């Protein structure tokens, strides 16, 4: 049930831009509007585009459900693990244990309006990336479950 050649070419061109935009939203979640949930949804839109332009079987050969399942579980585990690790640093659950001491994302932020530095935020960017991975897997699994049951044979126009 793949669409016409024009739609497939457009999907091929748009696909990397959608992916880059989604990763940008996820990674810049602590600086600009957006975050893990929104960016993961944008990345899942790329999977929708592929499913619409190509047939389901063509997509499912290169994108297996196990990858999405594993990414969803990995995202949730990374989220809970980052939150739990604050207990070993002597903070409360979800305490910001990277904020001033960690190797990454630990630059202190000045109060007021500043242009923003990607290397700030403590656990906020880590949790953003974890949620982004999880939402990507979850939305992809939902789309594959719902669109995967369609009959792919016959009357393609």
């Amino acid at each position, binding site marked *: 049930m793949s669409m016409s050649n024009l739609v497939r070419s457009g999907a091929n061109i748009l696909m990397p831009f959608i992916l880059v935009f989604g990763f940008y939203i996820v990674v810049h979640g602590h600086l600009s509007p957006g975050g893990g949930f929104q960016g993961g949804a944008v990345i899942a839109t790329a999977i929708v585009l592929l499913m619409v332009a190509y047939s389901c079987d063509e997509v499912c050969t290169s994108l297996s459900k196990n990858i999405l399942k594993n990414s969803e579980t990995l995202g949730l585990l990374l989220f809970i693990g980052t939150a739990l690790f604050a207990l070993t640093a002597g903070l409360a659950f979800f305490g910001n244990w990277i904020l001033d001491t960690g190797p990454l994302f630990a630059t202190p932020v000045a109060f007021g309006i500043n242009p923003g530095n990607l290397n700030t935020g403590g656990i906020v960017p880590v949790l953003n990336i974890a949620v982004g991975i999880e939402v990507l897997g979850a939305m992809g699994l939902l789309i594959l479950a719902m669109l*995967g049951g369609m009959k792919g044979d016959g009357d393609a126009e």
Partner: protein
Amino acid sequence: MKNILQAGILAVCAVAFLVAGLGLSFGTPAYTDMDDYMLLHGQEETGSNNIVSGVVFDYRGFDTLGEATVLFTVVLGAGLVFRRLGKKEDEYEYE
């Protein structure tokens, strides 16, 4: 009879919506110190310039954990409902 009933229900809903939307005043929300505190200390305490991200992932992190768990459960339920029956790999061994 059915048309009259439908029109009546629609009229009641429209009047209720218009009264609620136009007639009632919004009121004065109670003053809280919470928003001022987050705006003044959020940048230094969470380290993120985006105060919304700071609230969602740091101050209210437990709530976000619940959201992520809800999404996980949604995928489990949708996978249960939309599973493909009759495929070889989905069949149980004792069937």
